[in-house]
């Protein structure tokens, strides 16, 4: 059965992302006005906050895809959930680094421990940093994908709860951006929205690249197993899902190198010696 190609539409998505990123950068540096208090330093806001939003949404998306995996037992959803979380983790790392740079420029410190937004984001990041080791610790692919999905759902539910808890906290040190009391002027708000769209497109494009590469590798691996099954090394332990859901498990060869049906491995049905 031919599987659906993940690479479809990748070129158009990549071009759109590059255009959106270029537009966002142009707006940030040549359209949005300088903020009264922080001045030019506030330009970090247009990369840091969209990264944080997309990263948190990516974690939640990973949980939703994991629910779909648990419902259908289709490993393609596990793969999507894995890639969504993997990419959100990378965006989360970028959020922490850009946030630290902003904090250093603005507050004079790389990190402030009494700021709930920073610490809560770090907690979410560290929580998801355990996702890959969890997967790697489980050798059986079926159990690995099931446990990882349960983790993704639980942690994904924790993300909005954490967000709400931080919102309800009393600190006013960290700037608020997505609230009804937001006082962003129109040009700043428009630039911010374009930046969010650009970063979201970047996330989607990189996810699609990752899915395409993983799916292609899985297809090549499956092809190798079919063609040269006898010298093909078994897949080692990996945190990444195996990829091809439609591939049926192959029975172990007997001592004579024949499958239980008498068919030689790597040969088509009816061609057994």
């Amino acid at each position, binding site marked *: 059965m031919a599987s659906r190609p993940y690479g479809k539409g990748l070129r158009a998505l990549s071009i759109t992302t590059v255009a959106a990123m270029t537009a966002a*950068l142009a707006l940030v*540096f*040549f359209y949005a006005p*300088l903020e009264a208090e*922080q*001045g*030019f*330093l506030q*330009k*970090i806001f247009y*990369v*840091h906050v969209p*990264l944080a939003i997309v990263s948190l949404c990516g974690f939640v998306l990973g949980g939703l895809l994991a629910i779909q995996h648990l419902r259908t037992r289709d490993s393609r959803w596990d793969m999507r959930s894995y890639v969504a979380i993997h990419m959100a983790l*990378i965006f989360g*790392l*970028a959020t922490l*680094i*850009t946030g630290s*740079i*902003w904090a*250093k*420029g603005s507050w004079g410190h790389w990190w402030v421990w009494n700021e709930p937004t920073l610490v809560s984001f770090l907690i979410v990041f560290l929580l998801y940093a355990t996702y890959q080791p969890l997967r790697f610790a489980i050798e059986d692919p079926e159990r690995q994908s099931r446990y990882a999905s349960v983790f993704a759902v639980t942690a994904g539910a924790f993300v909005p709860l954490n967000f709400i808890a931080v919102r309800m906290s009393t600190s006013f040190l960290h700037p608020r951006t997505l609230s009804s009391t937001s006082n962003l002027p129109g040009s700043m708000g428009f630039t911010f929205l374009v930046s969010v769209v650009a970063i979201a497109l*970047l996330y989607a494009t*990189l996810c699609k*690249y*990752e899915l395409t*590469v993983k799916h*292609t*590798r899985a297809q*090549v691996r499956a*092809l*190798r197993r079919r*063609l*040269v099954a006898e010298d093909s090394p078994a897949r080692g332990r990996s945190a990444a899902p195996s990829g091809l859901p439609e591939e049926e498990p192959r029975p172990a060869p007997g001592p004579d190198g024949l499958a239980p049906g008498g068919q030689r491995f790597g040969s088509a049905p009816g061609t057994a010696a």
Partner: protein
Amino acid sequence: MIATGLLAELPALPLHTAGKYVAAAYIVLFAMVLVYLAIISVRMSRTERELGELLERLDGDQPATPRQADREPGAER
């Protein structure tokens, strides 16, 4: 020429004050994307090489079909 003219028209950025922090933040993002794309391209080239090996192997294992045998030297007449 057009690009130079356009750049001359654009407002000057106050890079002297917080420029290094802003530059660092944006460079971090683009460096991460570049590193990620480099990793992806390495993986793709590895997959391409594996696919090439499989194709070579398939060509080597393939028994000569009558049409191919006809094309072999000495089999023409």
